[in-house]
């Protein structure tokens, strides 16, 4: 099974226009695997992105081969809870301000924006930055989906630097962080900054990013957006899932939701009574994202493969924070980017990395 069934060549469509934004939003939500911000959170970003494109013109998208490998690319992303962003709205300029802080004196200026985390809101923030700065976006990111930790990227796995890391928030607080334990420090600052903040990491050589990162994820988001943004009635969930290179795991009613927020990240477990089989349950384990699906004590889908829960009626994706009792959902599995499914990489993102006593189950082998 291929990760991106029909790698979208963006040639001929190298511009992201306001018309593309909604489709893109659906795609990044699917790649969020239930995390990285839901529909409401993404809506805030799409509004800003559309405004920026209308003001500054469409965002040019380049494949990694189309730019000088020695040119510098910068990545941006939100840290914290996307839901808080709805209450404490961004100004839209946080990333641009942060970039000024991380650009070392004397180094050449950055010539492009690259992706950090394609899943959820963070799939759109780099495009917003690109639009504001008038820079092209190079189609590569470090996750190919959403993950909770800022260092859960293939960039970090390859040893590419993340610091200094600039962090800003709408009311003007700024910090430049450098630490070997950047995750903990950044989260501490983020909490003091009010629940969410914008980060910009040290720019990378495009060549390094292309080698270490996951190319083509924006194209993947657009592909998924095209499939899942179409009206629900026109294609069944099963058909859409297969068109996306994945499969429909189960349809069922949420009968138990249990959440706990004692650890670093909130975690929860959900029991879904299957509607397609008698007296049978599916269990969803979630933290920021949906991470494992099990049925009768056997794993069906495991992280880093993607798990999406969709409202069976509307076809809209439901994030982990909003999944509630009584909802009838379709659980859809999509394959992880192949870069993660390698022995040395899996340890960062497999179920054990999230504290589950389970091994990664190769996609589609349940």
């Amino acid at each position, binding site marked *: 099974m291929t990760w991106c069934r029909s790698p979208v060549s963006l040639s001929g469509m190298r511009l992201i226009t306001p018309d593309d934004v909604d489709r893109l939003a659906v795609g990044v939500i699917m790649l969020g695997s239930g995390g990285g911000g839901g529909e409401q959170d993404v809506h805030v970003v799409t509004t800003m992105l559309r405004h920026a494109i209308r003001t500054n013109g469409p965002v040019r998208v380049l494949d990694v081969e189309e730019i000088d490998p020695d040119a510098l690319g910068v990545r941006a992303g939100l840290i914290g809870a996307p839901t808080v962003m709805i209450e404490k709205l961004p100004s839209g300029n946080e990333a641009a301000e942060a970039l000024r802080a991380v650009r070392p004196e004397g180094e050449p200026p950055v010539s492009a924006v690259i992706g950090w985390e394609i899943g959820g809101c963070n799939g759109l923030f780099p495009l917003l930055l690109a639009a504001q700065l008038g820079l092209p976006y190079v189609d590569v990111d470090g996750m190919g989906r959403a993950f909770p930790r800022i260092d859960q990227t293939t960039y970090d796995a390859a040893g590419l630097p993340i610091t200094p890391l600039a962090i800003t928030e709408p009311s003007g607080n700024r910090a430049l962080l450098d630490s070997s334990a950047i995750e903990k420090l950044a989260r501490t600052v983020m909490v003091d900054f009010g629940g969410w903040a914008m980060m910009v990491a040290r720019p990378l050589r495009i060549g390094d990013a292309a080698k270490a990162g996951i190319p083509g994820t924006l194209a993947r988001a657009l592909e998924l957006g095209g499939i899942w943004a179409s009206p629900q009635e026109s294609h069944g969930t099963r058909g859409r899932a297969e068109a996306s290179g994945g499969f429909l795991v189960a349809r069922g009613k949420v*009968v*138990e939701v*249990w959440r*706990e927020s*004692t650890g670093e990240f909130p975690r929860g*477990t959900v*029991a879904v*009574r299957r509607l397609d089989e008698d*007296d049978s*349950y599916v*269990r969803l*384990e979630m933290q920021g994202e949906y991470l*494992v699906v*099990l049925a*009768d*004590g*056997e*794993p069906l889908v495991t992280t880093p493969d993607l798990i999406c829960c969709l409202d069976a009626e509307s076809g809209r994706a439901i994030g982990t924070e909003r999944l509630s009792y009584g909802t009838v959902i379709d659980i859809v599995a999509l394959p992880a980017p192949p870069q993660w499914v390698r022995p040395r990489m899996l340890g960062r993102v497999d179920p054990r990395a999230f504290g*589950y*006593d*389970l091994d990664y189950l190769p996609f589609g082998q349940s």
Partner: protein
Amino acid sequence: MTADSLTVRDLLGVGALPDCEVLAGARGIDTEVLDVRLAADIGAVEACSAGDLVILTGHAPYLVEVALRRAYSADVRAVVLVRPEAGSYQPPSAATLSFANRLGVPLLQTQAGDPLLVADALRTAVRRPDLSAARLLNAVTARMRRRKPDPASVLPILADELGVTAAVVSADGTAIEGTTPPGLPQSLLAGSVAGAAEVDEGWAVAVPVESDRTGHVRLWLVSHVRSGGGRWIETVTQVSQVASWALGKWVAEERLDVERRARSRGSLLAELLACGDDVPPHLVQQAVLAGWRLDGWHTGVYAVPQTPDHRIALDTNRTEFLRAGLARRGLHGQLVEGADGWSFWLTNDGEPPQSQHRELTLRLQQAVAMCDLVAGVGRPHPGARGIARTLGEAREAAGMAGPAQVVHIDELGVRRLLSLAAETPALVEQASRLLDPLAGVEDGQLLRTLAVYLDEESVTSAAAARLGVHRNTVSQRISRAEQLLGVSLENADERLAVHLACRAARAADD
């Protein structure tokens, strides 16, 4: 299954799992457990082999479900979750329980500070069942040592240590302390050795506390076991046995006390006689402590001095003399001295046959004659109220007894009526007047023939045989007597009057 093997149900009983409950999968509870394993992760569950019981230290829902699935595949007998005494714990949800039920793998939940202790206790129970029984015995005896072992202190100890509901029960099933298990079969208390029987909820284990010289058990210690299999019932029986010895000692002490207060037996009997059909438990307890058996068939005897003498009944030497006299003739029963006589009764398991009356009367006669007493005997009656009834009859019979006689109540009806008749002067006078025409006729032969004829139910041949004459002679004499008296013996009223007159006349002659 071997005798030493334990099932999941047995393990629930041994008390190794504090506050343990079966959450789901009860279908598999009677499977045999061969070993116990502690599993901190799925890998450890996968390493289990058939027959193991797994104690899971984690309790995340997915983990429990995966463990159940692996346990099922490996033929593991049960999965035990340990609920910590402090900290967060998420009990298995309906989805998990439904899954366990479908698999039929028992999912148990216990509470403990350290799962290691649970594992240790269970492993000991599985590998050395005798050792865990010994531990329980130790615990029970140690606790009994600290207090005077009466039912009020022993029963709670059994309840705590064995998790049973215990009761001290008399042979008729009345609980004198604690609660009798509902549905307790009477047959369990009919024997003379420890036994177990199925009751409404689980099993009842009965061990004898105290029995009489014939081996009849008067008092039982009954434990209601709600969970556990054969092995556990055996352990409960063993521990109960020890407790029963302590209770037996208590009974002996109490009885000694009761003996010392002999008078209390009299008042106890009086209370028993007064309470009618429903004997209250406290009275049952006192009766059992006094060594009385309330179940079975009782035959009462009431003995009084030949000449009324109120002092002698209070003479304890005389009571002992009577007791010895009865015992010498094989009459072992309860003897209670009253103000004007002695109540005595014998108890049999079943209803004594009619033929025994004669034998009993004979032996009694010998015994009471030695003590210058006369006695009445009642009919056998069953149960606690039977004591009151038979003694009542005996007392009535004793009132009718002549010199050096033992009278059975059954003989009393006719004799009593006739003695009344004989003692009523008006009737005697009337009788002699009625029979006057026959006085001296044929040397009194006519009157004698008439009396015998009527005694023999007006059967001529029977009367002839008794008198040693031909039956025609009898017929002729009866016709003559009818003529002389001016009555017809065909008439029932006249026949009865003549018959009564004959008896009254004979009583007067005597």
